[in-house]
């Protein structure tokens, strides 16, 4: 069953997506899978409501989880809007360059741990270079319509599979929602005989 596909739906505006990234990408180290990174627009840009109580609780809960996982969290720059869409565009370019993991990890750290503003060229460039990506290629990706179409397709697919939040992993049609379901996915992948020897 080598080469089984796992889709990984991710939003740069979701702190839970940020928490999921190191362990999410590591799945491809531990299992014989093709991990397909699928960047999607933030919930609030998809017309979904996020009540104030949820936003407050999320910040507090993520801080505790980040501490438990040893990840920086607290020096935040909320990327809602251009920051998120620019990261999505560059993430598609990073996939083409084989550096999706590096870019997603760098962007997450920048947004949630270092208050980097990816809506500015200065902020996004810092993230891109930390991920080993050249700025010229990244800048070109920002105005690439084919890339924008791919982001839209990813977002539509999340809706089509019937899910509402991120991060979501999908393996053989089964959905695993949340950074706290990665162990459950690993269990299923092991059960499917996909563990690397």
């Amino acid at each position, binding site marked *: 069953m080598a080469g089984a596909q796992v889709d990984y739906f991710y939003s740069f505006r979701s702190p839970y997506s940020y928490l999921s990234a190191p362990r999410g990408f590591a799945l491809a180290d531990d299992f014989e899978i093709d991990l397909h990174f699928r960047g999607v627009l933030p919930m609030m840009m998809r017309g*979904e*409501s996020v*009540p104030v*109580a*949820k936003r*407050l*609780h999320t*910040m*507090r*809960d993520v*801080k*505790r*989880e980040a501490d*438990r996982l040893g990840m920086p*969290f*607290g*020096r*935040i*720059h*909320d990327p*809602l809007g251009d920051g998120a869409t620019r990261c999505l565009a560059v993430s598609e370019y990073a996939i083409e360059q084989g550096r999706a993991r590096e870019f997603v990890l760098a962007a997450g750290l920048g947004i949630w741990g270092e*208050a980097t*503003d990816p809506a500015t060229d200065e902020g996004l460039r810092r993230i891109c270079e930390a991920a080993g990506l050249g700025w010229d290629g990244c800048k070109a990706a920002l105005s690439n319509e084919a890339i924008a179409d791919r982001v839209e397709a990813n977002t539509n697919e999340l809706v089509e599979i*019937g*899910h*509402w939040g991120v991060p979501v992993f999908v393996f053989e049609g*089964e*959905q695993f*929602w*949340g950074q*706290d*379901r990665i162990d*459950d996915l690993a*269990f299923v992948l092991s059960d499917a005989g996909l563990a690397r020897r």
Partner: protein
Amino acid sequence: MSKLRERAEREIGPRVIVAASTITAPARAAAAARRATGRSGRLELYFGFDDPASAFAVIDLEQRLQGRKVIFDLLPVVERGIKDDPALERKRIYGITDGRRLGRRIGLTLSRSEPIDPQQTAFLAGWVAAAPRGAALTRFCAAACRRLWFESDGPIEAERYEELWRECFGSAPTADQAAVRANEKQMTRRGPYETPAASIGGRWFFAQDRSAQIADWLDQLGWTVK
């Protein structure tokens, strides 16, 4: 939007919320004061019998609180969730898939393959809301959650749960739906929007996903296992 306002919304506000959440001294002092005056700690759990994640949380927390001088305050609700949530039905269906995973963590197998309509278990919420807090109520809730989600499928027969109630309390249940409504209002006012939601020492937790955090916070507050 002015630059200052934008910075406040995107950076300063979130940073203040996160920083404030790390302040633990007042909660620890309050817990110490309770112990000094011979009182117990208190873990409040808003939960729904129609929700497999709640069933997991009730069973799991009952185990985790053993040996700690902490009152398990079980607060049943029926109506809850994000107002006009378009994903409500999808969440309930997904809850079944997720409930299987949660069950596996405590060695139980989910016996249902379809969501339960909240109104079908509203009678249980009414009974629990009317009863005095204590060991018998905790025992009943944990047993009822097991029976509902891990030992049965199909229609929910109130008679079977009444038998269980008599085993725990030695008398017939009475119902207080007004108390359930009060729990729902209180839950909304205090912030949680989904069940199961646990509150201990001023902190809220997703009770099905944060077992380790809850145990750690109880330890920090001094409500350790004796």
